[in-house]
């Protein structure tokens, strides 16, 4: 019988009712009394010198309250980068300034250089059009190789060149050289991980409100991590102390990473509302989102695998160029390094690995974490490469993988991480069972009878999530702690509010988190509510990204609940005139072990707040506990994915015929929500593999800045997915044994799709080594023409 309560129950989501009835409260649904509207004037060239900005005509227009330019932000901090990478020579990365409004130069299409604040949106738009500016266009660097060439135009004049850092990780040179010198076979692949735009359906919104009475600013914003924004904006940009700054992230319509970062618009509305003493609201248009939300991926890589005569992997080396865009977004520098290089071992016991990454400034929108962040790039390289090796060697791609799997844990990789647990054989076994591999040849024949080529693509993945152990990441350059926090407030009548640092923007925390507390206390979930998203209500936790909510914040919640149980047992012991060591908590009842003497949950909670018969000399009244939890390691979800495609040889069009995912997420709290997370990740991964691409022309013009130009997956582009999470190796170092499931689908799915396309083409006699994503009909057709 499946459980219907507590950990493991597929409970329906309580938050759905408000979303299904139009009662959700997203940032744009909030209006403040007397609010003004803000419109940004953004650069329409990729690189230029601001010669002049004349706002005099615009200022005289109806409704205009004030117009701001970069000059208003002189002497005010720029947007900070939260991670300082040290390069291979021990030097810190180059860290250019990132002003809230451009000063002197604009560096990408969309770079804001002026902002109009007016009584209405229409008046703000009209006035923005009346600003007269002279921006002298300069040559732009877009391509990373060109940006690194001698004499290339510099994105930042005060830096020596466009190289942000040259970083490496892994085995020493001698070990790598020896592996490749001894290799019986070397497989080499050059590939691009295409630039993507995260595209949560809710565009970003920021509403700043200043209260002169207490000198407090409130920022309502579409954020995955309100406390991080409060810290970065308060301490680094505007110099507002934390106790005078409140950041609220209400219902947020999807994030996928791009709503982690601190953006100029947030700082602007907070600053401007203090200047004009009225609330200031900005709502992004979708076109604006394309040129101001941080983009994702955009790596160019050469990767080589050395195999011995028995097809064992003996060495791996990579050389990656990673696009940073024009400025360093909040976590940008960590993505190609510590979230990518550390994953290059994948599921394999390759003894010598060396990862080289050069991060490059270009005149494009800043690039930062997007669902998976570095780990999809690592997985794509490795799993395409292993597939290519199998094809070159004429061996079965699954057998080659199995032969090289890590099978004993813990396992310290050559790239700085230690996998605590996993069972890659089990997930591969499960996958093979799910996909009816023996039946594939018959399915291929059916496709051939229709004139189509059918391919099967397989891959594995490993990811590091549950971000992150603060001590470790501090040594690696993180400028923040990455613990999380929870406060469990038990009310007098026994109901509970749990204030958490994690933020739910689709993940269903309001449903899943109470299941954990309910299981621990033996009470019904309906007595427990989660409070999140408001820095004035929640403890200083770090928010939701990197599949960390349950593994890190959930662990804090468990620790706080344990403290509650300990104290409640003391109170119960007093009420029952027994030692608290003899008190057992079961089904919401405290019992003296071995007796029928008991008190109910509500009796204890009431006693805590009405302490008449209460040992005040030993125990404080009240029942509220906070815990901060800092993980001792990352968690390492893993799995095996398979995709079957049909390719139309006439047109090159690829259709996904089936998709299967066997994941090991450790323990699962709500399987319905976990499956939904995997579905969504696969949908985005198929989008990357087949459809999505953010395109700049050679002048740095953004060509894909609307949904008419950027191909988002639609319902017809994807199939039903088979997903399974029955292979469970619980995480060994957090109290729930959970690993995280939010990013897996996006990490694990792109190589399966591309491997399937290559397999389909091979079955038709087309010996194609690789096709870069998105695998569009044009690219497939061109590859078939040789």
């Amino acid at each position: 019988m499946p459980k219907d309560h507590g950990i493991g129950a597929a409970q329906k989501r309580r938050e759905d009712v408000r979303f299904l009835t139009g009662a959700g409260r997203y940032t744009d649904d909030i209006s403040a009394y007397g609010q003004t509207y803000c419109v940004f004037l953004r650069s329409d060239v990729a690189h230029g010198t601001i010669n002049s900005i004349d706002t005099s005509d615009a200022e005289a227009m109806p409704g205009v309250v004030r117009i701001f330019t970069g000059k208003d932000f002189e002497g005010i901090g720029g947007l900070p980068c939260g991670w300082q990478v040290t390069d291979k020579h021990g030097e810190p990365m180059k860290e250019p300034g990132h002003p809230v409004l451009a000063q002197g130069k604009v560096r990408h299409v969309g770079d804001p250089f002026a902002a109009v604040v007016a009584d209405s949106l229409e008046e703000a738009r009209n006035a923005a059009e009346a600003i007269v500016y002279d921006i002298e266009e300069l040559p732009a660097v877009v391509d990373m190789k060109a940006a690194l060439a001698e004499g290339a135009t510099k994105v930042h004049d005060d830096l020596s060149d466009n190289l942000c850092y040259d970083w490496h990780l892994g085995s020493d040179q001698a070990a790598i050289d020896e592996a490749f010198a001894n290799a019986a076979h070397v497989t080499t692949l050059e590939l691009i991980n295409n630039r993507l735009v995260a595209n949560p359906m809710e565009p970003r919104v920021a509403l700043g409100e200043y209260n002169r009475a207490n000198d407090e600013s409130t920022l309502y914003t579409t954020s995955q991590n309100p406390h991080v924004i409060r810290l970065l904006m308060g301490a680094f940009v505007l110099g507002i102390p934390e106790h005078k700054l409140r950041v609220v992230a209400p219902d947020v319509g999807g994030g996928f990473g791009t709503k982690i970062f601190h953006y100029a618009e947030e700082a602007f509305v907070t600053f401007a509302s203090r200047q004009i003493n009225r609330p200031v609201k900005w709502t992004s248009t979708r076109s604006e989102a394309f040129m101001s939300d941080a983009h994702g991926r955009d790596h160019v890589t050469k990767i080589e695998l050395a195999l011995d005569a028995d097809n064992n992997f003996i060495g791996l080396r990579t050389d990656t160029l990673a696009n940073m865009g024009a400025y360093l977004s909040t976590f940008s520098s960590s993505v190609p390094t510590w979230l990518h290089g550390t994953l290059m071992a994948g599921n394999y016991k390759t003894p010598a690995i060396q990862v080289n990454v050069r991060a490059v400034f270009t005149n494009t929108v800043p690039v930062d974490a997007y669902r998976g962040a570095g780990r999809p790039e690592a997985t794509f390289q490795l799993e395409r490469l292993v597939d290519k090796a199998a094809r070159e060697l004429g061996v079965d791609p699954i057998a080659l993988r199995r032969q090289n799997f890590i099978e004993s844990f813990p396992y310290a990789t050559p790239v700085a991480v230690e996998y605590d647990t996993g069972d890659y054989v089990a997930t591969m076994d499960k996958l093979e069972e799910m996909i009816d591999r023996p039946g594939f040849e018959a399915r291929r024949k059916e496709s051939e009878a229709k004139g189509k080529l059918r391919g099967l693509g397989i891959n594995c993945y490993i990811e590091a999530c549950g971000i992150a152990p603060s001590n470790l990441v501090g040594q690696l350059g993180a400028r923040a702690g990455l613990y999380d926090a929870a406060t469990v407030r038990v009310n007098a009548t026994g109901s509970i509010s749990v204030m958490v640092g994690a933020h739910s923007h689709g993940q269903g925390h309001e449903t899943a988190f109470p299941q954990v507390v309910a299981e621990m206390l033996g009470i019904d979930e309906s007595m427990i509510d989660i409070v999140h998203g408001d820095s004035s209500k929640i403890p200083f936790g770090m928010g939701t990204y990197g599949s960390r909510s349950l593994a890190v914040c959930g662990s804090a919640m468990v620790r706080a609940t344990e403290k509650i149980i300990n104290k409640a047992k003391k109170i119960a012991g007093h009420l029952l005139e027994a030692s608290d060591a003899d008190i057992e908590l079961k089904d919401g009842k405290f019992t003296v072990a071995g007796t029928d003497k008991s008190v109910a949950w509500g009796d204890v909670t009431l006693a805590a707040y009405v302490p008449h018969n209460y040992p005040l000399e030993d125990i404080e009244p009240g029942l509220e506990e906070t815990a901060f939890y800092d993980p001792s390691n990352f968690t390492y979800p893993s799995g095996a994915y398979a995709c079957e495609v049909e390719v139309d040889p006439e047109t090159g069009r690829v259709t996904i015929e089936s998709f299967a995912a066997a994941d090991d997420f450790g323990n699962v709290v709500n399987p319905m929500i976990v499956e939904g997370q995997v579905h969504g990740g696969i949908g985005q991964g198929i989008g990357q593999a087949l459809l999505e691409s953010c395109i700049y022309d050679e002048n740095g013009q953004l060509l894909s800045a609307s949904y008419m130009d950027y191909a988002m997956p639609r319902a017809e582009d994807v199939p039903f997915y088979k997903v399974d999470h029955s292979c469970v190796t619980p995480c060994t170092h957090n109290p729930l044994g959970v690993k995280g499931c939010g990013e897996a689908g996006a990490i694990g799915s792109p190589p399966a799709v591309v491997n399937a396309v290559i397999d389909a083409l091979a079955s038709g006699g087309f010996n194609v080594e690789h096709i870069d994503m998105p695998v569009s009909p044009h690219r497939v057709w061109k590859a078939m023409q040789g």
Partner: protein
Amino acid sequence: MTKVTMTVNGKAVSKEVSGNTLMTEFLRDELRLTGTHVGCDTSQCGACVIHVDGKSVKACTMFAAEAQGAAVTTIEGMANADGSLSVIQQAFQDHHGLQCGFCTPGMVMTAATLLKENPTPSEHEIRDYLEGNICRCTGYHNIVKAIMAASGQDVSGIAAE
């Protein structure tokens, strides 16, 4: 400014609007019916779908003045009279057909029109009909499943091993 009169979710509404006020702005800003969402500026995403005289319309493609005399239904008007979730809304909850909830109002409104036109649509017909509605969270799996379930079809075998 022109005066526009219509019914919205069964209630008579009469307001002065300017000629360029979009239906999305009218609903969200004038009537404070913020369940109708704006996710793009090119009429692609479908988060703003409402019913105008029983037909699905992207509210961002329509001026408020064009709704003169119309019967308009928004997501706020889709629940049963007693406030309980309608069959389609309930199916979305039962089958986890939403995550962040931002595209959801448009999905529910589009699904309602589909099921009126085609009471038992196939998987393919549902996917085809959702062409104008983008969801970034669910990978569409549970949306399609929820709509099939709302039409009374057995969905227990979908993507089963």
